């Protein structure tokens, strides 16, 4: 089967994000970038399914030349080929979904796996738009909801199972207070939650091999998509700074303060 996965370039979650003083965005100087962690999980799940069922994983990213780094990362993990939608400038969720729709129509995958959201603007919309516009079924927030280290985990049925006839996919989703298992006809769109899998480390020979894997370049105009945003970010602000804690001299004072000030006991 053919699986399309996404690899958005986002700020490294471990770097310190600072909002520009005028609120128009974040300070980009000195920041490191990575593949969106949810997308990395999507790549991993795609690779696992293909290992079981055969086929290929195609990875797509939208952005300037710098997104090659994320495409190469996915290729190094084992993806077979990459599609680069060359676009710089603002883009909203509908723009992204519109571009992905065209890529899907071109590549004709059996399954599209995306991160449920990207950790930069946390919108959680692209997968849903994409499924809607393609007219495909969707299963969002695929998850396992188990500690990865537990014995149980190792023997557990995977959260994403493709039916024996290659016509359906069964997905375990994380919902409030538990798990829901849904079945969806293929082709379908699945979005990944954090606890679906633990992505592999790329092997070092894999990194070298990625160099010679193909990256196909597309442009929005060539795909016939108007990506003029319908949504604009008008202001960004940092969360209010936390007040420094205090030290109390003894347990009695602590209990007293928890009672009278924090009012938690």
């Amino acid at each position, binding site marked *: 089967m053919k699986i399309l996965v996404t690899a958005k370039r986002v700020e490294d979650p471990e770097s310190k994000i600072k909002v520009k003083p005028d609120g128009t965005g974040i300070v980009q100087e000195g920041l490191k970038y990575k593949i969106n962690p949810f997308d990395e999980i999507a790549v991993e799940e795609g690779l696992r399914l293909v290992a079981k069922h055969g086929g290929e994983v195609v990875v797509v990213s939208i952005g300037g030349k710098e997104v090659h780094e994320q495409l190469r990362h996915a290729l190094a993990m084992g993806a077979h080929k990459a599609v680069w939608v060359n676009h710089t400038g603002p883009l909203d969720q509908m723009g992204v979904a519109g571009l992905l729709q065209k890529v899907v129509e071109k590549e004709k995958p059996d399954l599209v796996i995306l991160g449920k959201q990207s950790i930069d603007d946390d919108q959680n919309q692209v997968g849903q738009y994409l499924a809607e516009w393609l007219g495909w079924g969707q299963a969002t927030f695929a998850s396992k909801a188990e500690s990865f280290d537990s014995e149980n985990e190792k023997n557990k049925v995977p959260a994403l199972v493709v039916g024996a006839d290659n016509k359906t996919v069964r997905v375990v989703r994380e919902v409030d207070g538990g798990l829901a298992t849904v079945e969806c006809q293929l082709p379908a769109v699945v979005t990944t939650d954090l606890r679906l899998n633990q992505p592999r480390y790329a092997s070092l020979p894999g*990194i*070298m091999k990625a160099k010679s894997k193909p990256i196909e370049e597309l442009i929005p105009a060539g795909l016939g998509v108007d990506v003029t945003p319908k949504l604009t970010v008008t202001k960004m602000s940092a969360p209010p700074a936390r007040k420094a804690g205090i030290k109390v001299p003894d347990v009695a004072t602590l209990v007293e303060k928890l009672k009278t000030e924090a009012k938690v006991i």
Partner: protein
Amino acid sequence: MPRPEITDLYLIDELLTDEERAIKNTVAQFIDREYLPIIGRHFEQGTFPMEVIPRLAEMGVFGANLQGYGCAGLNNMSYGLILQELERGDSGLRSFASVQSSLSMFPIWAYGSEEQKERFLPGMAKGKLIGCFGLTEPDFGSNPGGMRTRAKKEGDHWVLNGTKTWITNGSIADVAVVWAKVEDGGPESIRGFLVEKGMPGFSAREIKGKFSLRASFTSELSLQDVRVPDRNVLPNVRGLKGPLSCLNNARAGIAFAATGAAIACFEAALEYASSRVQFDRPIAGYQLTQEKLADMLQEIVKAQLLGHRLMRLKDEGKATPAMVSMAKRNNVRVALEIARTARSIFGANGITVEYPAVRHMLNLESVYTYEGTHEVHTLVLGKAITGLDAFS
């Protein structure tokens, strides 16, 4: 505000290819996520986290700069970058990788028969077979040419007798590359023997009481009438050149890697100095601390440039022993000094394993001594400069 990128003040990252950078970042991520959280405990308890071996093997770390036989076939620069990230974790892990790759796999790869390569290298690359390198003896450290370990021919076997000491990975090794003199010969008769675990008369004993490289196995090997079959002798090398070429390989990696420990100490000290308040100000704001940080960074950048050039020269086949000696001598010494300075910035906290400085500082005392002591590298360089041999 601390900026970790400050350690790359001279944009040395830009001198790397995209693939070299990706290799470095991948190993760095593994170290950050999987190794740093556990190393303090292992160092304290004097244990080695065996579980990381298969995972590093899966990534292709072991014998990474060798071609074929299941090895990754990367260049020496990539190999150096891998080791530097392992060393940023702990010198014990980097020592494991250096010994496995440069001192055990390399001699088999370079001097072994086809049959030996097929028999050992794929398993060693996978981390299923662990190797060690037996050169040093109780009475012969800097002067290995004086070794007493002997091999005598008996039919289609060799009988080995002797003691090797300070052998990294000795007690967990499946195969030991043991260097011994043949019959009554001198240093020119030295040959390499692949002594396998379980051969009668061969045993390894863990050296206790170490305050350095605590998260690494160091052992004494005892060989009493060990019968080693002909097919376990490295056919293609004779004399001290064998072990010394392995060491030369390993030393280049170590010279490059030592900066990893220095970076770990510097970054942690910078973060600590920025948040530790004394006399109402972060200690990073005081001139004396800033001088320490400036000195540390300056030496890190210089060491990185030296290491970078060394690996490029090695990839071009132009690296000489004098170049390797200069880099090992400089980079390990400055890393040790940086670790000590970092330790002082942490104040009392600096003497615990909660912070990395004292651990690296103690480790680097070994690195200063092994793979050619600092003094021995001074003499190699001195000989290259003057043409006069000051060893004896």
